[in-house]
């Protein structure tokens, strides 16, 4: 348990340091690398919380794919942040502090970490998911069972969202490398 706490503190302080570094840097290439590092650190944090499914996603999407997409975007735009006038940064700082304060204030309402009387622990659905799952679905990974079967409708919606996002990007950007080909005329 104490090692867990120590690891949490180390990871969270690393994340804070990375966040500060991202805020200070003007060149966006290191920023893309550091956001990847940030994702990797949060993936480690998820692993510590036993949320391995989320950690796997975070590591692959956040640290891998998103970083590459950032780098690809820098090929289209400039990779250096424009200097912002002092007055604007002060407004940004104020907004950030305010939002942070509101979030911290809201977190005071949350149940304590690991507390036993949270809705997650006491809701009757928990019994259904964790205890009756072995008779109803009988797969060891409860996350897969909940996402795929109990909440299959939601997951279908998520897949459609991913698909729609893909179509949207293809419609907006996909024309550029599609247009020069002559073979398009044959398809029509």
């Amino acid at each position, binding site marked *: 348990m104490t090692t867990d706490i120590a690891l949490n503190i180390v990871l969270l302080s690393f994340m804070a340091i990375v966040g500060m570094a991202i805020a200070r840097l003007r*060149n966006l290439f290191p920023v893309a690398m550091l956001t990847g590092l940030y994702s990797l650190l949060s993936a480690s944090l998820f692993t510590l919380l036993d949320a391995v499914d989320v950690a796997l996603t975070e590591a*692959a999407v956040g640290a*891998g*794919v998103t970083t590459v997409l950032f780098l690809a975007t820098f090929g289209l735009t400039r990779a250096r942040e424009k200097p912002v006038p002092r007055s604007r940064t002060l407004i940004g700082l104020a907004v950030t502090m305010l939002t942070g304060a509101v979030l911290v204030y809201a977190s005071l309402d949350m149940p304590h970490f690991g507390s036993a009387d949270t809705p997650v622990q006491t809701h009757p659905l928990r019994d259904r998911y964790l205890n009756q799952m072995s008779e*109803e679905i009988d797969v060891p990974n409860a996350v897969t069972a909940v996402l795929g079967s109990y909440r299959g409708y939601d997951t279908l919606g998520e897949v459609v969202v*991913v698909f729609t996002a893909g179509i949207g*990007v*293809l419609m907006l950007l996909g024309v550029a490398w599609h247009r020069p080909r002559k073979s398009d005329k044959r398809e029509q």
Partner: protein
Amino acid sequence: MREHTVLRVVTKVLIAPIILFALYVQFHGDYSPGGGFQAGVVFAAAIILYALIFGLAEARRAVSPNLLRITGALGALIFAGTGVYSLLRGGNFLDYDYLAHDAVHGQHYGLLLVEFGVGLTVVSVITSIFYVFAGRGRRNDDEQPPGDAR
């Protein structure tokens, strides 16, 4: 990246295990962490790694963008189709109990099919998005890699 021999060799060695791991995460998702989404992302990462090291044109030849459009739609259709099939078998939409004679077996089949659909869509969409992003940048800096732009 043609001149980076170390990168090319290491990538060649790594890509097969990455794809194998993606398939493991896909089809072993009922037993261990992971599932269709994670597997799709890992698989897409393997394709993206290939494109980064060996060039976009090579990657497009290996995994065609047109194929990805079809598989992207197919994945969502497999998911929805599983639901419709269970509807036809007399159950509710996405009620996998009716997919086989035994309810638990039906759930297993259902999860397998549904996760496969998720994985197919995710790998297709992410790779397609990468293709169009990287493909657009190509016109501007064909000669100079993005790293020299500063």
